[in-house]
Structures are given as C-alpha cells and as structure tokens.
C-alpha cells in the first residue's frame, strides 16, 4: 500500500513523528478497532480514531439519537435526533475521512452475538463505551476468552476511570471488579448526570490506547486503573495486581461461557450506551 498525495498531506503530522512514520501510519490504515457504544465515550473515541486514519472502525449500538445525548455525544448532530446512532456515527466518520471503512452493528451486545461481532473483522482492539455493568462484564469476558485487548472506560458526574486489558499481561476488569452488582439487590441506579466533557477526556484516552496498541509504542494502561476527577483536576494511576482467583482470566478460571447479566432496575432502556 502506498500513500496518495492527499494521504501524505492528511497524515503528515503523524508521519513526521519518529515513533509513527510512514510505517506506523500504514499500520493505522490497516488497523481495525471495534467500538461498543457510540455514546459519551464511544463518540470521541470513534472520531479521533477516524481522523487518525484507522482503516476499519466497527460501531455497535442499538439506540437512536436522543436530544439529551447531544450535550456529550459529539459524533451526533441536531439533525440526527431519532436516527440510529450507528448510522449517524458512520455518516460523521465518512464525512471526516474517506480512508475509513465503517462497519455498523445495529444491535445490543449479548452473550450470543458478541464473539461473532469481534470475529467479524478480526478486530485488533476493542473499546468499551457502554454505560452498564452487564455489558462491561460481557465485553471483558468476551475479550479474555477470545484473547483480544480492550479498553474499559467509565464516567459519572465529574469523575472518570479507564484501564486497558492486554491478554496475558496484567489483570482484566473482572480481576478488580469481581461481579456486576446484582439486579435484584437493594442498590439500584438513579440518574446522576455527567459533565459532557468527561466522555471526551476518557474516550480520547481510550482512543490513545488503541492507537498505541496498533502502533506498538509506549506503555499502555494494562495493570493500571487511571482515575480522573475534573473538579480537582487530579489524575491518579493506580497499580492493579492480577487476581490469581479471577474466574475468567486466571489459571483457576472456571468460566468457559459468557453470561448475560440482568441490568439493575433503572428507569432506563434495557441496555443503552453511554
């Protein structure tokens, strides 16, 4: 694959970086990233990966754009209200960069479809941009079982967190958070709100991890939970040990099949995305 003049110009600020160069930019153009959830986290992640020239971007979401999404889900515009998010997201990416092939999956992930979606294009890296714990555990378990790296992201109010899973190299999400909160337990969830930029900050870090992984440069957030507090402007990188009793990624793992957890009873759609 050789670059066109337009590509040389479009990616010139990447190509002049010695850590990327023409070789690295080719890796990005051949790279395949799956983004699950095209909401607060997935929107900025998808846009930066598209701008960077990641050649194949998969978008998974079964939701339609709502007016209340636009405060943070910047891949969608006012004219897109009511449109399926994956369609709206694909349109934005296509306008941003014709080099990117967008693959859309207009469905919620569950135990019976997630492995097929990951295998569909043999994605290199997966970004979790979902807002609910059943989906977060499902993505973790599916990535561990199919030996795929992924980035976890979470945001609420003025706080955010992210960690990266690399197969065989550090803990998985379940090592740290053993099980999702049970749906029928006393605690449930309530509307809390989120500062719109939180998705941008954490989602962009998730995109950074995907780019570094594809390029093979730098140190990733495997074995660390990065937390961010927007009110105090504090980033903390918390070292995470491997959980030797983890039921999905340890030597003692007992889990061989994916689980569809029930979502805690919220006044929300069954499985909407951030």
């Amino acid at each position, binding site marked *: 694959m050789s670059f066109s003049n337009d590509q040389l110009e479009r990616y010139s600020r990447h190509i002049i970086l010695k850590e990327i160069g023409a070789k690295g930019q080719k890796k990005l153009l051949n790279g395949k990233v799956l983004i699950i959830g095209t909401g607060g986290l997935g929107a900025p992640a998808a846009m930066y990966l598209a701008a960077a020239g990641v050649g194949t971007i998969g978008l998974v979401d079964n939701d339609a754009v709502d007016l209340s999404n636009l405060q943070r889900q910047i891949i969608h515009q006012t004219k897109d209200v009511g449109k399926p998010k994956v369609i709206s997201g694909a349109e934005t990416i296509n306008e941003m960069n014709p080099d990117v092939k967008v693959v859309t999956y207009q469905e919620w992930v569950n135990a019976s479809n997630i492995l097929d979606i990951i295998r569909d294009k043999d994605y290199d890296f997966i970004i979790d941009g979902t*807002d609910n*714990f059943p989906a977060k555990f499902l993505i973790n378990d599916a990535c561990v079982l199919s030996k795929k790296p992924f980035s976890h992201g979470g945001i*609420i109010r003025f706080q955010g967190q992210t960690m990266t899973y690399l197969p065989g190299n550090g803990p998985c999400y379940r090592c740290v*958070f053993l099980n999702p909160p049970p749906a029928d337990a006393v605690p449930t969830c309530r509307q809390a709100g989120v500062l719109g930029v939180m998705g941008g900050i954490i989602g962009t870090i998730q995109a950074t991890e995907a780019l570094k992984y594809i390029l093979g440069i730098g140190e990733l957030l495997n074995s660390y939970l990065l937390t961010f507090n927007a009110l105090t402007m504090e980033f903390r990188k918390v070292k995470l040990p491997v959980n030797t009793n983890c039921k999905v990624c340890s030597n003692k793992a007992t889990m061989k099949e994916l689980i569809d957890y029930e979502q805690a009873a919220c006044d929300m759609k069954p499985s909407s995305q951030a």
Partner: protein
Amino acid sequence: MNINVNGKEVILEKEINIKELLILQKVEMPDYVTVQINEELIDQEKFELTTLKDNDAVEFLYFMGGGVYELFK
C-alpha cells in the same frame, strides 16, 4: 497512625479495620467497592478482619458505568 487513602493522607486516632474505614470515609456503597492495600486486593469477607497499619496505602476502587446513571442505596 497515618495511612494513605486514594492518594490522600488520613490520620487515624486508633487502630481500625477496613469496614470501619469505609464508614469513616463515608463510602456510599461499601458492598460495591474494591479495596486494595499496598497493591494487594482484599477479599470482601476479610474487611472486618483486616486491621490497618501505619503507612498503609489504601485504594478504594469504585464501579463506574457510562454516564448518566449511578448506583445508590
């Protein structure tokens, strides 16, 4: 006795265990917090049995979803 909780120094008047620290720190959802001491995960069943020592580095790691909803009691 001085300990460190999520990067901040906390002075303890007396010896306490993790369960007591969760109450002292007003952690809202103590059943859903992951606790690490000096980079070691502590089983939830051991919260009451684990007494904090001087200079312990404690991390409370919280569940965080994707945005507008949060867990509450």
